[in-house]
């Protein structure tokens, strides 16, 4: 964007910060509902019987690591090092896919253990909260792959590093939300 802006901030970036502010209220409502309904389910399975902290710690670690790849991808794009930019962008996408794989595994095993959307309040609020987060990760993966394809076609470079920066804001935000979910849902049972 070539125009000077009143605040000196890129408009797309500013818009994205307002979007993140809005998303905070979305996840805030979902997390609040989960917490309000904690212990209110009248039938099991209950959280402590089913949540698998070791496995989820692995997927959490994977998602956190992908945030680091994201930082490295942006740095590479900014300095015009497109070889590493492609590698890191693909890395972020793969990190996201691995996280989603863990989530698919987790959801499947929960359903086998009897926890479904309909089973109890824990199931409903848990699946909707983590599912919404997973949907955000999935959108992020598609976004990263799109950027990666752009980079392969030679359409990404320091001149439009801002698009990678904004994708990075999104990715880090989704990551921070997961840290909150992991803490409140998994660790503080």
């Amino acid at each position, binding site marked *: *964007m070539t*125009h000077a*802006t*009143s*605040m000196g*901030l890129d*408009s797309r970036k*500013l*818009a994205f910060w*307002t*979007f993140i*502010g*809005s*998303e905070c*209220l*979305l996840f805030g*409502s*979902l997390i609040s*509902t989960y917490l*309000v*309904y904690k212990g*209110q*389910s*009248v039938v099991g399975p209950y959280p402590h019987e089913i949540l698998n902290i070791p496995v989820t710690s692995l997927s959490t670690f994977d998602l956190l690591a992908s945030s680091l790849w994201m930082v490295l991808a942006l740095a590479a794009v900014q300095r015009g090092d497109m070889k590493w930019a492609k590698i890191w962008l693909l890395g972020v996408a793969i990190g996201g896919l691995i996280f989603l794989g863990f989530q698919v595994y987790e959801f499947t095993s929960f359903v086998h253990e009897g926890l479904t*959307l*309909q089973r*109890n*309040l824990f*199931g*409903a*609020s848990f699946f*909707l909260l983590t599912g919404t987060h997973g949907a955000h990760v999935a959108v992020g993966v598609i976004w990263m792959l799109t950027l990666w394809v752009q980079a392969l076609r030679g359409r990404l470079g320091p001149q439009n590093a801002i698009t990678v920066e904004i994708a990075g804001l999104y990715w880090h935000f989704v990551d921070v939300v997961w840290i909150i979910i992991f803490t409140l849902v998994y660790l503080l049972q």
Partner: protein
Amino acid sequence: MSNPPSTGLRSWLTTTDHKRIGTLYFWTAFAFFLIGGLEALIIRAQLAQPDGSLVSADTYNQLFTMHGTTMVFLALMPMTAAFFNWIVPLQIGARDVVFPRLNAFSYWVFLLGGLFMNASFLIGAAPDGGWFGYVNLTGPQYSPGLNIDFWVLGLQILGVASLAAGFNFIVTILNLRAPGLTMMRLPVFSWMTLVTQFLVITAFPVITVALVFLLFDRTFGTNFYVPAAGGDPVLWQHLFWIFGHPEVYILILPAMGIVSEVLPTFSRKPLFGYTVVVYSGVLIGFMGWGVWSHHMFSVGLGPIADSFFAAATMLIAIPTGVKIFNWIATLWGGQIRFTTAMKFAVGFIAMFIIGGLSGVSHASPPSDLQQTDTYYVVAHFHYVLFGGTVLGLFAGMYYWIPKMTGRLLSERLGSWHFWLTFIGMNLTFFPMHFIGLLGMPRRIYTYAPELGLGTMNLVSTIGAFVIGLGTLALVINVLWSRRHGEPAGPDPWGGATLEWSIPSPPPPHNFDVIPTVTSRLPRWTTEHPAAPSAPGSAVHVPPGSWWPLVAAAGLPIMASAVVTKLLALVFLGAAVLVFGIYRWAYEPFEV
């Protein structure tokens, strides 16, 4: 550089010009306002006499639900959006909003969402659970039909439109101001737009979540609001009103902004206490988040919660009262011209005071418990939403339509419009205070003659039809003036802000040269500066785009999956949406 086409259907379908999008918002909102008003007239006709038999109880439920939903989401909010679109870029000295295609997307999503919700009438299953949609009434057990599905999905679609517009206008106001136009020189209407949009982007995600829960309860058999499974219907009430109360300010703050422009212009005085008016508006925005449970006193939340929300509700009257005093002080000693816009602005102050006072009266839980779910509440919120928002919007129409069309509205017809509306609304809504306090509940389709409320209800009904006549005068005025109105010229009122410095209607690029602002009232304090030099080259106007419309079309297709039970529509709608977004992202489009 090819300019966008300027006439024909295609030019409207692909437009990204904020002024044209504003015009689309205006006419769509106007049409929905008439539909919502028609629903109100049928409601009042039904209640004109005891034991009314015009409509069935079932139809009546659909009518009051769609009256409320239509007026809030399809008439008033989009009408404020029409003014945001038209006026904010002109007031801040910009050539367009910051994301013109996102702006078009907002409009198309709004239009399609409104059509989706109203399509329910075609199959005789319009939403019938009230605009607040309380569970369990709206849950699968008590509302098994498609009615509530249309409501839930329609609101979800409309929420997308509001959110997208919210991001767009916040960034536009923060980032596209003309050189020298600091935040404390920003016209109050643009300030109130900014506060409103912050409320939109924070309030709408909350109702989105509430609606997703309801959708899941209805479609997938979850138990979010089912008490037997440990769920709590009060959760819906909290989530709905955490959204719903800021929503009230989303509706009133733009009208306050309009009035803050109209009063100074026709008093020939700067707004009294500009800074305080702005800060009061911001404070209302913040405090609007801490009062939601006053809608829920009858739930029995306990003394601590009740006390907190009672105190917060009384406190929020302070910044509101401050604004009222500032408006009155603006009039004081001014050279007042009672144009139609001014009449509506002064009417706004008077009516909003009445609505505000009855509002404070149910800030107190013991008093509220006597009033809740009676016509007293109906009287209250119509004084703030009709006496406030609608009169404010009418003031804005008479003030700014000359800027939009280049022609003045008729003052004579305007006078008819004002007096019919003003008298009509007091006839309609004032008796409702008594009707409510004497015990008539809301949302009942008929009442017994023994209640002795027949006369007052008849007066109220007559008043509603008087408002209808007033609205007819407005319709005639707006249509007539398009051809026959007096040419307005760039500045028919001697306004102080930048929109009056350019021709009416403005050229596609608004400003030949972006102005430099040196004061809060640029047109009053600058001695007509040397005519700005002509731009060196033709000003670039972005071309139109099809993709906002295509992307928007994906949403109602996805929503149709729930009401038709065709899963494939989800994938089709998502494909259309994603396709539209990708084409949009990668089409050449230089702003």
